């Protein structure tokens, strides 16, 4: 075979391949089907679900844990009973699995109508920028959501229309439950150590020390997934960092910095907990689900974690379970990481946006809040500590205190699209001793400023 003979087919194959590609896709890689259609104006919105004909609402949620699953099942059933013409097709996945698939699912040709979307820039931020989520402002006006939820709650699901500014602008999601990271503790163990739930950092540290001395595991942690330690780290940070600084960092505002003295102190504090052996041995190898189950079985005096563990822990531990706000550190003001559970959002491509909005309204109205509380959840508003039982009383009291004192600060991993992965990864390195706190914070700072610089 001669060289000349070879060349022609090469060319032919190349031409064929290129034209096949061009046929398959537009030249510049484009969007995933999001169109910036007109947002619904209040006067165009129908709230009369019963007259909409037969509708199937495709809903994706991550409420797979005991109590949360129960409340959503109850509310879905009630919604279908109220509107027999509506069928709710529910897909529920664990938080991790939802994270893995929501990006792919929301961009394909037949996305769900309603989906729970993480507030942060990696998810809701990018989806808003790409025009994949529907503005809820019109519905908020019709249904009076502005009055229902305080601004601090709505802002965690608000973005500017271009997705660049987080924490203000247009409303894109409605959450059901409040969420905060606090101290779960084992009442029996704490009692036998003769300790009260710690109010200050000093008390916290002496409690951990006492637990360790008594042969107990001070703080249960399973961090194989790399995100759980972010919450332990957040509590340490909140001991030193003023909450307005944390807010600037969490919402990814330009000018905020990871390398302030307070940040260094916070990171050092977390590292010292690791070095003192206050956290589960080999916690980077322990799955999160194993860790909270172990805590429920009596391994660990404390577990730093969100209110999302409440139903499961209470089911396993009963009256032994206690909840306290994290201690107030040298910074002198309480700061509690949290906000709301994942907000429910409506996709731009949904053909039943009005019905979906009615569903969101139904999930977040006063009756729903009662159902949530009855099932061991923390309603985002109207939590009634008096009627609550068990640990729910402590959680709701704490939540009311936090919202009254304006102590909520956003999750640090919301800041930039890759902060969640980066922070988790860097924390694993820091705790393993591969890097020191200076290198740890520098890496975060670089990624953070790279993002805020180009996010103009």
């Amino acid at each position: 075979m001669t060289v000349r003979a070879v060349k022609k087919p090469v060319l032919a194959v190349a031409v064929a391949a290129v034209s096949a590609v061009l046929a398959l896709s537009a030249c510049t890689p484009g969007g995933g089907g999001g169109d910036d259609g007109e947002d619904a104006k209040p006067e165009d919105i129908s709230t009369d679900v019963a007259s909409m004909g037969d509708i199937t609402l495709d809903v994706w949620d991550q409420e797979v844990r005991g109590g949360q699953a129960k409340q959503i099942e109850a509310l879905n059933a009630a919604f279908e009973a109220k509107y027999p013409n509506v069928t709710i097709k529910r897909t529920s996945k664990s938080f991790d699995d939802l994270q893995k698939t929501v990006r792919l699912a929301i961009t394909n040709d037949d996305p769900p109508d309603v989906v729970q979307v993480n507030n942060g820039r990696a998810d809701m931020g990018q989806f808003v920028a790409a025009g994949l989520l529907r503005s809820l402002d019109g519905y908020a006006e019709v249904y009076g959501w502005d009055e229902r939820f305080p601004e601090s709650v709505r802002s965690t699901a608000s973005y500017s229309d271009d997705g660049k500014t987080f924490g203000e602008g247009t409303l894109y999601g409605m959450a059901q439950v409040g969420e905060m990271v606090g101290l779960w503790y084992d009442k029996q163990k704490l009692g036998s150590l003769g300790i009260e739930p710690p109010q200050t950092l000093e008390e916290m540290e002496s409690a951990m020390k006492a637990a360790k001395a008594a042969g107990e595991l001070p703080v249960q942690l399973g961090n194989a997934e790399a995100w759980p330690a972010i919450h332990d780290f957040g509590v340490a940070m909140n001991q030193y960092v003023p909450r307005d600084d944390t807010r600037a960092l969490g919402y990814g505002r330009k000018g905020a910095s990871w390398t302030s003295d307070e940040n260094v102190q916070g990171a050092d504090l977390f590292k010292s907990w690791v070095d003192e052996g206050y956290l589960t041995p080999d916690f980077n190898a322990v799955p999160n689900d194993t860790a909270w189950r172990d805590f429920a079985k009596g391994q660990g005096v404390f577990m730093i974690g969100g209110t999302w563990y409440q139903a499961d822990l209470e089911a396993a531990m009963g009256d032994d379970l206690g909840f306290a706000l994290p201690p107030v550190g040298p910074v002198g003001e309480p700061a509690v990481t949290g906000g709301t559970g994942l907000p429910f959002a409506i996709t731009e491509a949904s053909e039943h946006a009005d019905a979906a909005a009615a569903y969101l309204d139904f999930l977040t109205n006063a009756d729903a809040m009662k159902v949530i509380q009855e099932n061991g959840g923390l309603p985002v508003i109207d939590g009634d500590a008096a009627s609550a039982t068990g640990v729910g009383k402590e959680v709701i009291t704490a939540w009311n205190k936090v919202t009254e004192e304006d102590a909520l600060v956003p999750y640090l991993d919301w800041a930039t699209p890759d902060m969640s992965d980066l922070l988790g990864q860097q924390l694993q390195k820091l705790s393993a001793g591969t890097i020191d706190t200076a290198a740890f914070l520098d890496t975060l700072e670089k990624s953070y400023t790279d993002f805020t610089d180009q996010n103009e």
Partner: protein
Amino acid sequence: MRTSPLERSVTIVVLAVGSLVALFPIAMIVASAFVSDNPNETGIVWSNLSTAWDEGHFSTYMRSSVVVTLCVVVLATALSCLLGYAFGTMRFRGSSVLFYVLLLGLMIPNEAIVVPLYYQLRELDQINTYQALIFPQVAQSLAFGTFWMRAYFRGTSRELVEAARLDGAGHFRTFWSVLLPMGRPAVVTMVVLFSMWTWNEFLLPLVMIPSNEELRTAPLGLTFFSGQYTGSPSLLAAAALIVALPMLLLFLVAQRHFIRGMTEGAVKG
């Protein structure tokens, strides 16, 4: 040939240890699948398998895996035989260039194809479909299959083909009635390989089936199952066993033939 008793014993030890190490992880899964998570309950428990089957929606996932595997194997085998026949027995312009293109298919890792393919298929609204699972895997199997069948066809006797032609057989009848039936061992080995690759494939369904649970394949279903049942090692082991079993059985049935064919064919390329 004689060897010293010492060497003989070393050999036996190596044999035993090797088998033990190879089988231990699987044996552990099997053992775990038949005990209860409740430490008070002893003895063999059969219910884990059925519980895992129901809770893990494995009837759906297994069906999907079977459909995808069957389609891929049938299509890839048919096309590989045609390609192998042409490359192995015919001379035509551009054959070596086209052959290099196939070579490319052997060397390009799946990972480099899946991402762009996902965005292309998304553009065409083909995500969450059987097609999105089947055709990419046919394409990925073809390169190997062609080499495999080409080696077989090149090795067939020229006299036989001549004889067939004298009998008046055309090129297709020579292929279909003379050469292919004789190549059954090669085809069977290839079918077994295709089945295993397709059944065990993970990345492609992970990317192509983001939301349609009806089409989720069994290995993918297992990872979602393990996300939800970390607290129950026995159930997880049972689910893992369910996913592994079909290919283990296939291998068990075909192993003697398969290993021989595999080593002969692979070296020949």
